[in-house]
């Protein structure tokens, strides 16, 4: 709820250096203290992204961990378990229609999709989205977040 409010009404705060990282760290702190299963899932996703896609985990400019491979961002995960991946417009509609993802929480018309990670069993679905992201054409990355 707090995350949604900040994203909707305080997007300008994201331009302040280090503030998004601080906010995301507080979300991750809350996750660590209240939902160990979700925290383990976030860590597992990071591990799988490194193993399968040789992605480099990096600081995302709006907070969270970005997975960068081949010089571009495949996706990123926030401290509250919200995972965003760039799958391209062509794949977006299919992924949403199949219930594998939700429209992106800020840019619903872009080639990005969102997915909530709640437990370790959700990680494979996030990995699928990363795989789609790896194969997507980055030239159609409208509303690219990285």
């Amino acid at each position, binding site marked *: 709820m707090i995350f949604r409010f900040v994203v909707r009404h305080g997007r300008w705060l994201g331009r302040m*250096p*280090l503030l998004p*990282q*601080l906010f*995301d*760290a*507080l979300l*991750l*702190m809350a996750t*660590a203290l209240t939902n160990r299963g979700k*925290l383990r899932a*976030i*860590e597992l996703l990071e591990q799988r992204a490194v193993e399968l896609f040789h992605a*480099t*985990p*990096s*600081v995302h400019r709006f907070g969270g*961990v970005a997975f960068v491979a081949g010089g571009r961002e495949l996706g990123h995960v926030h401290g509250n378990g919200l995972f965003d991946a760039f799958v391209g417009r062509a794949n977006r509609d299919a992924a949403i229609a199949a219930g594998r993802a939700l429209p992106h929480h800020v840019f619903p018309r872009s080639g990005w999709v969102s997915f909530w990670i709640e437990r370790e069993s959700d990680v494979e679905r996030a990995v699928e989205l990363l795989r789609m992201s790896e194969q997507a054409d980055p030239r159609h990355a409208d509303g690219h977040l990285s």
Partner: protein
Amino acid sequence: MHPSRIRWFRILGGAFAANLLGWAVTVLYAWIFRRTMTEAPKVHEIAAISLYANLLLVPMAMGVIAAYFWQRLEMRIWGYLLCALLTVAMCVGGAYLLVKEGAVCLLIASPLLWGALFAGSLIGRLIFRKVEGRLQLAIFPVIILAIFAEGKMVGDEGGVVTDQIVVAAPPAEVWKHVVAFPRITDEPDYWLNKVGLPSAAETTCEGEFVGAKRECIFSNGLVFKEVVSELEPQRRLTFDVTEQPNDPELLGHVTLHRGQFELQANPDGSTMLIGRSWYTLRVRPLWYFDWWTRDITREVHLRVMRHIKHLSEARG
């Protein structure tokens, strides 16, 4: 050396290095203050303003430094969270023992320190992993610039806290207990009072006239010296704070300027008692400490006003 010892050595080394940075910034500021106070007042002013940003950005820089030492431990996020807590404990313990900082102030600041330090350590974890352990120095000018920018952008925060309570007695009865009141014997129920924050205990006043000296006495003997600046019997009492106690919980953090009680007669014969306090906050980040200042001031108001209510209703 045994692997678990090496592990602890690295954890404590990171915490120590982070604290070293924190203390280095503190000593640097102390040195700048002493050198510039009389010789370069403009530099002194800039240093004083930038100091306020310390509570958010310096801990983040401390977290980045600590992560450099912790990176080889391949810790999970829980590990970073606990190590950040250990670093904060060292920092807070040092401030309490060496600088004689107030315990309640440190308790209030600790969650913020922990959050900022954890954020810094997460940033460091990703930065150092990316460059395979080499120290990426580009982050530090950004942090230093941000420290000065935040302080320069925001001035001291002045505020007023207002609270009200209905007393089932007429203003004439309530007024008798507003100017001064005997000692409050009830145990405070506010959690910060239970862990050591002094609570409002008693108020004395020379008399009902403008210029009368008033003393607001707290449970540990701290005294706020005040003088009555406005007096309309049964309607309004305003007093200016002339001397604030030299207490580490307050010193340099918050200045109380004025207090006021206003009495409004209700049609049913009861009284709306309104309490107000004006203050200036001098610690950063304002959004965090202003919330605490308001919460603590509200508790002081309500404790005093509930006491006035009790005395007035017992006699009314």
